């Protein structure tokens, strides 16, 4: 079962030993159409609205603020509010989030290259240096670590569930998950 969630932030428990926890808010979702366990669902995000969204809202009789659509595995067998029961009994979940985007990044930050000395006449500071051999092989090997876009890529992590507050829709996971606070992602119930 999958759920769309928003990362709230991190905290810790007072138990011995203390555990780091991540709080996730389960976003209110309505199931529009179910087919073999996968469903078209709608949720609210921003104020984006156009004729095609309005057409879908009319088709599924949705409130006017449910303007985003997605495909999820659900426990529901028919349209309506998303069934949160599997979360209450979940022990382990997989969280799918985008990592923090760091933009175009040099090799020292992206690949932990050592770099060179900063001073005393050195001309090799933070650059990548040599990237290959000579006339043979005459090309750069595939997979060569170079500077480029770092972060903002999808990462899946497995976390155990500490608790689920159905009233507020707050899921508490042990450990950390990728992405900044406020980021939207998915959790998938594994066990």
């Amino acid at each position: 079962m999958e759920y769309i969630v928003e990362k709230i932030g991190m905290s810790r428990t007072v138990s011995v030993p203390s555990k780091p926890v991540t709080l996730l808010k389960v976003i209110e979702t309505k199931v529009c159409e179910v087919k073999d366990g996968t469903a078209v669902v709608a949720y609210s995000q921003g104020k984006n609205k156009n004729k095609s969204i309005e057409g879908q809202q009319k088709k599924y009789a949705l409130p006017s603020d449910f303007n985003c659509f997605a495909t999820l595995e659900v426990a529901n067998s028919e349209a309506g509010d998303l069934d949160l029961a599997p979360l209450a009994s979940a022990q382990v979940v997989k969280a799918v989030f985008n990592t923090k985007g760091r933009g175009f990044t040099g090799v020292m930050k992206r690949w932990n290259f050592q770099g060179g000395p900063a001073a005393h006449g050195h001309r090799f500071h933070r650059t990548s240096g040599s990237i290959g051999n000579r006339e043979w092989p005459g090309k750069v090997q595939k997979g060569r670590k170079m500077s480029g876009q770092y972060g903002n890529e999808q990462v899946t992590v497995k976390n155990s569930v500490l608790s689920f507050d159905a009233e507020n829709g707050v899921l508490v996971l042990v450990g950390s998950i990728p992405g900044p606070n406020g980021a939207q992602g998915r959790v998938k119930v594994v066990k």
Partner: protein
Amino acid sequence: MKNKYIENFEKAQMAGKNIPEFRAGDTLRLAVSITEGDKTRIQNYEGICISLRGEGTGKTVNVRKIGANGIGIERVFPLYSESLQEITVVRRGRVRRAKLFYLRNLAGKAARIKELRN
């Protein structure tokens, strides 16, 4: 300001904990539960609170005492930890600072703190 969901989560854990009010300079007696094998016992640790930091469940207190052979010992306790059974304020100290790290550089009589009298 903390997020209200995080605040609620932490409040639920801190509920029922009876922590007296104290600040840096106060002498505290902490009852620490220690597990050895399958036995649990309580050990008291007494010293001067030299700093309080953090908030919520992450709030900690740094307690300094002078151990055997005049060696300074500092232990940092999470204030709301389940291993802290009781906190007693033994003596209130008159200090002008929130962090008393200067005590580390003082020894003997110079490291005393006057008692707070109202």
